[in-house]
């Protein structure tokens, strides 16, 4: 069980101003939870850019290679069928399946990576600071007790609607 001081904002622009104030005063923010994606919040929290799109590119390339090597192995190397003297390496015919498998690999593996890096899985117990964080309030959680007094003052100054200490 860990204790957190949380502040609730009811407006995304107030939240951004609040986060900027915490940053200026060097009060470390443990986590910010919002009911919808707030644009600019990742910059305000200095979050590193997600590398999932790069991973998706690698997965897609893996799909391309899998599809091409599968088709070339089966159709050209393992059992070349003579269909009216047509080519055993019909590249244009391989394109549709290559494209589909590229998309399939990129999409599925990226989705699985997304669940993995976010530690999301069916049945996981959600660590919710306040039920309003998926409804209408943005929660800023401060973990380090040494900063709680400073944080409380900052929450008040930047217009948080509520501050409280929660245990989870």
């Amino acid at each position, binding site marked *: 069980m860990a204790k957190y001081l949380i502040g609730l904002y009811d407006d995304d*622009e107030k939240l*951004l101003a609040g986060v900027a104030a915490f940053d200026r005063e060097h009060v470390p923010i443990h986590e910010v939870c919002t*009911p919808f994606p707030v644009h600019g919040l990742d910059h305000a929290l200095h979050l590193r850019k997600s590398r999932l799109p790069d991973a998706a590119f690698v997965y897609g390339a893996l799909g391309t290679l899998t599809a091409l090597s599968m088709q070339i192995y089966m159709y050209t190397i393992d059992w070349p069928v003579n269909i009216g003297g047509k080519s055993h390496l019909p590249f244009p015919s391989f394109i549709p399946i290559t494209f589909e*498998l590229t998309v399939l690999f990129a*999409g599925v593996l990226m989705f699985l990576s997304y669940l993995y890096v976010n530690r999301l*899985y069916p049945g996981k117990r959600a660590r919710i600071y306040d039920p309003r*964080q*998926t409804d209408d309030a943005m929660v800023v959680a401060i973990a380090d007790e040494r900063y709680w007094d400073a944080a409380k003052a900052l929450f008040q100054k930047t217009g948080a609607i509520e501050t409280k200490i929660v245990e989870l």
Partner: protein
Amino acid sequence: MFESPIREPLILGHKTYRKITDDLVAPILGPASWKWYVTTAFTAAVMFAGFAAITYTLFVGIGTWGLNKTVGWAFDITNFVFWIGIGHAGTLISAILLLFRQRWRMAINRAAEAMTIFAVICAGLFPIIHMGRPWLAFWFLPLPNTHGSLWVNFNSPLLWDVFAISTYFTISLLFWYTGLIPDLAMVRDRAKPGSFAHWAYSILSFGWTGSAKQWQRFEAVSLVLAGLSTPLVLSVHSIVSFDFATSILPGWHTTIFPPYFVAGAIFSGFGMVLTLMIITREVLNLKDYITLEHIDAMAKVTLATGMMVGFAYATEFFIAWYSGSYWERYIFLNRAFGPYWWSYWAMVSCNLFIPQVFWFKKLRRNPWFVFVISIFVNIGMWFERFVIIVTSLHRDFLSSSWRMYTPTWVEVTIFVGTFGLFLTLYLLFARFLPVIAAAETKSILKTSGDQYAGLSWEAYQARKREGAIAPALHPTLDPQNPQS
């Protein structure tokens, strides 16, 4: 954030974040009305009638259908292409309109994507049952086998279809579920702790909390999945059209098939989305979210894609004449004036002539009028596939083998049954999942809510001075820069 006054509000009723949650969670956690039970029982009965007809086909054989030696494809593939087409609007709305940053997609993307998934399920039934021996359906897969490992034919568009449709189904499902996770968490946190609903939505929402890092990854994944789905949706119906276009049959052997099929698919998909969304907004009381502006926008897309399809009809006729190919010309004259003339003119009337009423703004903004037109679109697009498949086949190169095709009760029951399946799945979706993407709708509230949208720059500044609109302090949300 300032929004140009020419943009109409997309969320009415002076909503707050809390009110959006209330409106979307109410139909899920509240009790269902008796009407929902009656409707679902009815559609489920229709669905089971369809399953019974499928079972009958499996036991007795494809001979129970109206097919003959000349017309070897008819209702089965018509229905397959029809259902696959229905699905395309969902991906267009959620993926292509996301890349174009169209905000009106937010209210309808969730339901449209659900329709995509359900339509692909209905579509997938037909290629499997039309094989006659569906227990051998796995022969479609490139698996090592006891035939000396004779592999599948990679030159065949029918095989490309297997890959295209299974990929389409998988990616659509993942895209849909990615968006659902945060909204399921919203339902979870509204449900009474300890209740069955809380337990079920806890499992389904994967422990989502909505932390900044989760949202950042969410947006990255959504954008990449949208980028992948956009060429995917175009490829799927292109490949479906290859099933016909790569053959040498007059009426099928046409280079315009891929774009023509894609436009038709989006057209038919929007027809179905309009049909169901106009009912949904009425029944679930979502008129503040699915506004006349949304119906207007969808009607415009319907008009545009309907005209593309109409243009393709004209092009086909022109090329049939211009090519100088005797067979090609005959097939097209036979389509319009032969024994199946009624299906051709049903198609042209429903797809080209009737949607022309959408040139009038008054009519585009009359939901029940749009509803009636959308039914015509659904009918017209079914006939388009029927015309393409049956009229090209029934009079082939040898006049002694010319035959007519009439469906039997088995085929009709299977087709009607897929409507039962589609609607049952949709009704379950509307009952147990949020039909509108709640998080996304909340994120556009301050640009498209009716208390914010439509203000001139001066009025916006004045309201801001009054404190009615919270000041923007983050540099990326600079109030001096109307672009931000």
